[in-house]
């Protein structure tokens, strides 16, 4: 490969890095959108929410592959799966002959990103945050690189309005409920969400309070910490396949049983990618969660 091209590839990577830094700055979304791909005819999306957005934009015929986190809509499952977003194989990605890649921040590993830059396949990393702005930014990024800014603005406006309406459902609630999100229960050990997670974001948007605010990420919660947290409601993912902790297992845990959630048997189960995806469907998830928490408020 010629030196010049290598330099060009390098410049592209640096440009992306710079882009990423800028877009992590709080929302002046319009200004720092990436330029459109030269050839957006064969796209790989990495990150479930981005795949959903491309479908929502009606541009799905451009997609040639997806990563393993892209499971919605069902038609997406028919695309070849290039693996987990942080363990992409360079040849696997190249084998679907993409002309451009749209990836969620954190996709990798860096070696694969290097090879893709060397192959002169443009790649845009989209930053993620678990709030309304984060979703709108993903939509605008996707629209910008596909050269479909107008469609994207329309979708963004619709999604923004829907989310606004969903959030408004709970704005008059006087008594906010404390929600404990349980990622998994392995042998009675509770893995719960702290702050900075998608679960934390959706609880906030649905007008709830995360019952655990002391640590970032997902951590095992001690029995005493559960009692201390006094959750009003338990929120879990619906996975199916009999792997879920059912109610009897949940309330067999003495600590959970003693909380208000345990006494009222208040458990909400929602589909994982719907609840935590932070894509176009999130407004619906907010509405469903808000309704499940506070009932029909309007």
């Amino acid at each position: 490969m010629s030196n010049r091209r290598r330099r060009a590839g390098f410049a592209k990577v640096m440009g992306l890095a710079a882009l990423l830094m800028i877009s992590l700055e709080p929302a002046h979304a319009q200004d720092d959108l990436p330029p459109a791909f030269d050839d957006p005819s064969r796209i790989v999306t990495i990150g479930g929410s981005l795949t959903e957005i491309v479908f929502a934009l009606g541009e799905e015929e451009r997609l040639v592959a997806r990563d393993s986190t892209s499971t919605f809509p069902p038609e997406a499952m028919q695309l070849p799966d290039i693996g987990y977003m942080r363990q992409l194989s360079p040849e696997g990605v190249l084998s679907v002959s993409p002309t451009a890649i749209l990836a969620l921040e954190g996709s990798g590993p860096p070696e694969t990103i290097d090879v893709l830059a060397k192959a002169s396949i443009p790649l845009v990393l989209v930053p993620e945050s678990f709030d309304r702005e984060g979703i709108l930014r993903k939509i605008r990024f996707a629209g910008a690189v596909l050269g479909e800014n107008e469609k994207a603005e329309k979708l963004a406006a619709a999604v923004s309005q829907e989310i606004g309406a969903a959030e408004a459902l709970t704005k008059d609630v006087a008594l906010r409920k404390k929600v404990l999100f349980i990622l998994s229960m392995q042998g009675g050990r509770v893995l719960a969400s702290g702050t900075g997670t998608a679960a934390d974001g959706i609880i906030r948007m649905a007008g709830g309070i995360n019952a655990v605010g002391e640590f970032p990420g997902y951590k095992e919660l001690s029995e005493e910490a559960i009692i201390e947290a006094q959750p009003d409601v338990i929120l879990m993912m619906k996975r199916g396949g009999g792997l879920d902790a059912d109610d009897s297992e949940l309330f067999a845990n003495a600590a959970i049983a003693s909380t208000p959630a345990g006494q009222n048997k208040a458990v909400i189960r929602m589909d994982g990618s719907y609840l935590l995806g932070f894509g176009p469907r999130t407004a619906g998830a907010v509405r469903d969660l808000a309704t499940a928490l506070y009932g029909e408020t309007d």
Partner: protein
Amino acid sequence: MFSAQMVSPRSLAKAPEGDRSARARLVLAVLALALLFVAALSIATGASDASALGVIQGWFHQSGEATLSDRDRLIVYDIRLPRIVLGILVGAGLAVSGALMQGLFRNPLADPGIVGVSAGAGLGAIAMIVLGGTALQPLAAILGIYALPLAAFAGGLAATLILYRVATRRGQTSIATMLLAGIALAALAGALSGILIYVADDRQLRDLTFWQLGSLGGATWAKIFAAGPIILATLAATPFFARGLDSLALGEPSARHLGVPVQRLKMFTILSVAAATGAAVAVSGGIGFIGIVVPHLLRLLIGPGNRYLLPASALLGASLLLLADAVSRTVVAPAELPIGIVTAVFGAPFFFWVLLRRRGILDL
């Protein structure tokens, strides 16, 4: 033959086949051919339809070079070829390290991990994955994408040096002490890793799991230039270990009477195994079973004489790892299965089968 005399008394009692060096030479030749074949197969297969044949034709026809797409050349030269070279180095390094350890510890269960290198490398890698964005950020920023392999290598070597110091008294290294101290060190490294895992976020946890499962993905020429010399140096040194390790099979006092510089042999063996395994683990993560299965398989074929066992282990280790990698690259294409899963899924049942069929024969 000297190597033939070095088999253990038990197998002598069963009247062994006698001199197996002719057979060993044949096996070596077959293994070398097999490695060539597997390497050719590896370069020709992958997730994409890039044609290695086309690239090779390009060598002979100047004009053909132009017809080849950039993409195919990139896939063959920058993805498959480095991966194959790395696979050969790692497979050979791990298998030879395993054979050396089994010889040194006179224990069929010994694998390179026994000198603490795996535990240390794991701790180094986990520390870099979890703390790379915070406490180790300056280091990670300087080293870039080589931060993780370097941390693993440094961790592995440090663990071995500690063990070696602990086990060496008055210039004599006690193998038993080293074994026990290794268990203690592994427990300690496991605990420290546990603390890091506890503070890790879910994304780091995924990275960590994948690292522990191993992969030859992300092979680059830079990685080969970094790890290659270390592994090659160990491979080149093995002929000098072979006689000494054969004598050691009779026990340390006997070896000493035979004129083997036992202490020096131990030191060099341990350090070169640590360096080679550390380098292999650093560039490919945790790949199990090659270090145990390969030498045992070969002992069944050509006997325990290290003169043939060590080079044969290198060849078979390289072939098996390449084969496993070919499976990992193609079975879920365009995604990729971690290679540690492939080696364990095929290695463990196979090993089990060997144990059941030939009970007792593996007691060195």
